[in-house]
């Protein structure tokens, strides 16, 4: 029997779940292997749980969602987060450093109608997560490799080394060394295939921190490139800014400045 899969959405842009639909060459094969019984973006009939595999996109930003994710976990045998929102809090986690009251006022004429949490947090802060697929958006090959692993009853493993390794494999010229451009590659997890350097620009960290990084040295590197203070803080507080090594380094730089 095909495993029953579900795709859940929390605060997100839909880009990660779209990666399933963007797998044009694999989509029908995928449907032959997995039964997406709950996938509101792609299917109007929604079947009840329990689910064998749940893919969760998006971060937790509202009290309702904080309750909903618990139910999702209860209904799901295996839960994989897909994307930076679900895995790291996402770009919307920038609110975590801000006054959300003020954010509400900036965005809405009648802020009192808005119910939101003061933070955007990754799924793992709320429930147990079995597998985290990083990226903003997740890489389609990685996503399908996770599906394949689960079908083969194998624990999915995704590489966690730095973008630099793939950057060199791809034959890019390093933008740090050859152009003096700031690049988060040395401290960022691979997955995108070193896209930004291939497009002549520094990596901005879509895939979150690599499994091992030397943030002190990296901060000194940024500083030597003239990226200090607020500029350095902004580089680190981006799409995955809420993840610990980056958060702490940015916070330290911000504190230093004060």
């Amino acid at each position: 029997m095909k495993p029953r899969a579900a795709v859940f959405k929390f605060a997100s842009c839909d880009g990660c779940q779209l990666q399933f639909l963007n797998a044009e060459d694999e989509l029908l094969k995928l449907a032959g292997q997995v039964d997406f019984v709950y996938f509101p973006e792609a299917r109007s009939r929604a079947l009840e749980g329990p689910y064998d595999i749940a893919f969760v996109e998006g971060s937790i930003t509202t009290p309702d969602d904080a309750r909903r994710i618990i139910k999702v976990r209860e209904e799901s045998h295996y839960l994989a987060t897909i994307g930076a929102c679900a895995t790291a809090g996402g770009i919307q986690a920038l609110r975590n450093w801000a006054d959300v009251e003020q954010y509400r006022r900036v965005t809405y004429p009648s802020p009192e109608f808005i119910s939101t949490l003061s933070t955007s947090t990754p799924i793992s802060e709320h429930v147990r997560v079995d597998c985290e697929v990083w990226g903003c958006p997740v890489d389609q090959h990685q996503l399908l490799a996770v599906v394949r692993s689960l079908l083969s009853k194998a624990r999915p493993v995704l590489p966690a080394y730095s973008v630099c390794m793939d950057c060199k494999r791809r034959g890019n010229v390093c933008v740090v060394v050859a152009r003096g451009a700031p690049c988060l590659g040395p401290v960022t997890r691979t997955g995108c295939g070193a896209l930004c350097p291939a497009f002549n620009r520094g990596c901005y960290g879509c895939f979150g921190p690599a499994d091992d990084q030397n943030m002190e040295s990296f901060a000194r590197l940024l500083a030597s490139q003239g990226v200090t203070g607020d500029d350095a803080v902004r580089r680190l507080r981006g799409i995955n800014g809420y993840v610990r090594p980056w958060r702490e380094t940015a916070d330290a730089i911000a504190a230093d400045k004060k």
Partner: protein
Amino acid sequence: MSEALHMPQPALEDLIAMLWREGFKVLGPVARDGAVGFDEVRKVSDLAVAMRDTQEPGRYRLGQGAAGEIFGVVNGAFSLKPFFFAPEETLLEAKRERRGFKVSEVAPVAPPLAFIGVRACDLAALAVQDRIFLHDRFHDTHYQARRKDAFLVAVNCARSAPTCFCVSMKTGPEATTGFDLSLTELEQGFVTRSGSAAGEAIAAKLGLSAAGQNEVVSAKARIDGCAAGMQRGLDPTDLPRLLYAEAENPRWKDAASRCLSCTNCTMVCPTCFCHAVVDQEELDGNMSRRVRKWDSCFSLEHAHIHGINFRPKIENRYRQWLTHKLAAWIDQFGTSGCVGCGRCITWCPVGIDLTAEVAAIRAHPVKR
């Protein structure tokens, strides 16, 4: 080495054309994205003509060079490594069958390659990789398929980058072996020598005449001048013993405080051969490819086994790399793993310099 011939500049154009005609894909130093690397060349003007590189630890810039100078840029961003030891390639395919599966080797598609402008350090590095992939107990068919027909035109260095230290590693600046043709660039044309039967045959087809005595002298003077002016050096004396004994030198920690563990040094090194072997299954589960990719001892995964990581800290990994490169390599393959090209110094984003690290350890040993 064979007799010195004179090769006028236009003959370089002929050489490129002739190699294409002979069925080679011809590659040479080409400027791209602010650096020079081997890429397809059809004519001399495709090369990084009249350009100069400036290199220092963690920094590379490409700028204007002497007008008319063809090989003014020394070793580029990438060595020959990616062309023979591919960054990523499929080795095997396993297909499911009714009962079990069938495995077949994937033969590499390898058009013969000709390289123009290979430096002595890179030739030395190629010899090191040959030793590893061809002359060890196991013989790598993929490497061999690409390597066997390659045609190598060396260029002797008339200047060095500040990061070069081939003299101390005894690999340059003159190419003495491992090439088919070698060139030394002069104001007017080149002094060329052939280093193989294939090279001789091509030289004969080009119809080159013998080089004049003064040309030979000035070619030698250029190479000697380059050697004499080399700014960096690494004292190779007794390195295995030194590095083995100094496994607990505090300098490793110091280097680790700077090292990003980003893997760049190992990726650009022309001799590093570590690779990962991964099986990639098709979505429908009917086929799986075994893929080999460059790997690095700087990744945490490299020394990981279930429940243990043998090199959990950056200092462990930096020491592993350097000790392997400069010491264990000699025990393993009878040659140093370092040829003095200096790429790991230039292309390290934070500019860690292995020659300085070794010198520091030598200067302050903790054992004896």
